[in-house]
């Protein structure tokens, strides 16, 4: 049979080209794989969930609590279907797996990017893949946000309201843009079908296409080689082939990973739709986005209120905090490969401590995002009496500058220290061996 297939499909060529692709042996190279597996789990659980989901926000009678004939209890069909899903055997579990995997996917992607950044793997010739990776991150976040909205409980309702407000805050074209994106004035009759289309067709399609491009480029360009490869065989590719060595490792990883997600999902509930109830005029106290968008939220919480009118357009704090600022941050991340001017192709993963400035910029950037995320907890910090309403903004603004700066200098200091120790070590061993030689 192999021969029959081979004659038609040239399996042996495929084998040489792809299936023998060498994988570097280092645990940090698994992060990308975890991200990929998460995407697959998300698609599978997503399909299962879509089978029972009703993408409509028209009001129907709640079958769990129908009310009375003259005062029926009407709730949106999408919310109703989420309730029904929870009532199904393992329905709640399926939602939890989907939710947890989404969080883990973003986390794995972020750590994967950190690995790429700190080891210099974004350098020539891999710039394109860095950019595709950035797009993947952005679209993953968008997919997550649209997914949030689908259960259409009060939480989702408030979320989509803010997202609509952000889209509408773009000067000049804002209201047109928001209406086009969300099917009319908020909350139009078509809002859930629209977001459903985004979440299950458009965005996953984009994610899959980008993932395919990401992987093909990676196969074409090969991984950066870990440092030990330099010593073993200079400028040669060192690693284990996909078939048959890497595959069992991957399978193990998948199973282990799936197991961990199951464990999470079994014990940590997510987003209780019953608790938040159907959309209502009652706001939710301390509503917050997921952790990977908390920094934008924090920026909005401490930005002062202002409004400029320019040529009939309005530029307000909403636009600056929720669109301009993230654009600047993401733009800076996009620009990372362009800051490196080296002409040669980079073969080897670099030791971060050999590039103290890059390392320090990276850590202080992360410190900045963390402080901004902490600012997202401003209301909670105030109610816990850590800060007061009067001083919260000032304190958080100061922290936003001081902490990243401190992190920068601390990192550089620590790296210098490490290097000095290392050099002292080397000198010592050198003098010892010299002494032994005598």
């Amino acid at each position, binding site marked *: 049979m192999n021969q029959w297939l081979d004659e038609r499909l040239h399996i042996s060529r495929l084998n040489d080209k792809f299936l023998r692709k060498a994988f570097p042996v280092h645990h940090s190279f698994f992060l990308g794989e975890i991200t990929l597996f998460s995407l697959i789990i998300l698609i599978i659980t997503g399909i299962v969930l879509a089978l029972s989901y009703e993408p409509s926000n028209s009001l129907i009678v709640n079958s769990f609590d129908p009310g009375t004939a003259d005062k029926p209890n009407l709730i949106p069909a999408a919310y109703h279907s989420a309730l029904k899903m929870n009532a199904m055997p393992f329905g709640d579990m399926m939602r939890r797996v989907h939710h947890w995997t989404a969080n883990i996917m973003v986390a794995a992607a972020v750590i994967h990017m950190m690995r790429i950044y700190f080891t210099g793997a974004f350098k020539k010739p891999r710039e394109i893949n860095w950019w595709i990776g950035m797009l993947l991150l952005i679209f993953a976040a968008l997919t997550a946000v649209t997914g949030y909205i689908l259960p259409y409980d009060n939480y989702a309702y*408030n979320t989509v*309201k*803010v997202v*609509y*407000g*952000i889209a*509408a*805050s773009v000067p000049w074209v804002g*209201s*047109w843009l928001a*209406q*086009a*994106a969300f*099917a*009319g*004035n*908020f*909350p*139009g009759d*078509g809002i859930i079908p629209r977001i459903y289309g985004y979440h299950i067709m458009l965005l996953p399609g984009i994610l899959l296409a980008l993932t395919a491009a990401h992987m093909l480029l990676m196969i074409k360009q090969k991984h950066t080689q870990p440092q030990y490869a330099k010593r073993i065989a200079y400028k040669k590719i060192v690693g284990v082939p996909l078939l048959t060595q890497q595959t069992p490792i991957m399978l193990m990883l998948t199973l282990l990973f799936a197991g961990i997600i199951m464990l999470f999902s079994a014990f940590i509930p997510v987003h209780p739709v019953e608790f938040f*109830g159907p*959309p*209502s*005029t*009652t*706001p*939710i*106290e*301390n*509503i917050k986005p997921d952790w990977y968008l908390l920094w934008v*939220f924090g920026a*909005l*919480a401490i*930005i*002062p*209120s*202002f*409004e400029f009118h320019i040529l009939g357009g*309005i530029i*307000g*704090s*909403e636009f600056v*905090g*929720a669109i301009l600022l993230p654009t600047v941050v993401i733009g800076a991340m996009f620009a990372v490969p362009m800051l490196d001017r080296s002409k040669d192709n980079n073969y080897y993963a670099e030791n971060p401590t050999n590039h103290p400035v890059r390392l320090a910029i990276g850590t202080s950037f992360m410190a900045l995002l963390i402080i901004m995320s902490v600012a997202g907890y*401003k*209301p909670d910090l*105030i*109610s816990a009496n850590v800060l007061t*309403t009067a001083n919260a*903004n000032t304190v958080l603004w100061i922290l936003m500058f001081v902490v990243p700066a401190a992190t920068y200098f601390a990192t550089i200091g620590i790296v210098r220290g490490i290097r000095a120790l290392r050099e002292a070590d080397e000198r010592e061993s050198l003098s010892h061996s010299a002494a032994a030689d005598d």
Partner: protein
Amino acid sequence: MTRYRKQDPEITRRRFINAAMGTTATVGIVSLVGVLGTANPVFRLTRDKMPPVEGDILVHASASKEGEIIKVSELSEQLIRAWPMGKDKEGNNLIRKGDPNNVLALYRFPKGQIIAPTNLEATIDGEIVAYSDICTHAGCSVSDDDQTEGQMKCPCHSGQYDPKRGCKVVGGPPPRPLAQLPIKQDGDKLVVAGFFLENPYPFTESEWEARKEAVKAQLA
């Protein structure tokens, strides 16, 4: 002997591919614009989507008491959320909650506490005041501030308003005060006395003027 000028009658493959890609991109962008045009449905101003109009009666918006007429005696320094209730074409009662941005916030403060820039003529005896309950920042419903008595806080990005001073912004990102709604008293009922004094969320000034005209034209 004839000299042939060297010429290549066929376009090269590369030229062809470039031209094809250019055409595809152009057609693609043009059709995308077309599609985006259809993505935005027409808005129809129905009576349940109208902003509060003169003569509307205020009813409770909280889930437990929704639709019950608010009595003056129920008001206090605690926020009460309300919907405007008008009439449909047949003259039946109709709660204008087709647009969730119509939700209102009602307060009653001891006399003398409500001060400028609140429009005192639009309050009832300088004691009862009504505002749009929709945060001018991104459109969340605003609540009582649990930290400071008699203040309002938006749970979304902690915008803060002072309802005794025209709901001006006292903290956080909202760009404008909440719009004040003129009200008057009719027996024990609260009645809307006119349009919002400023543009409420999500209208800009010119959009708000246009909406007021559209409402007047439809009700006339």
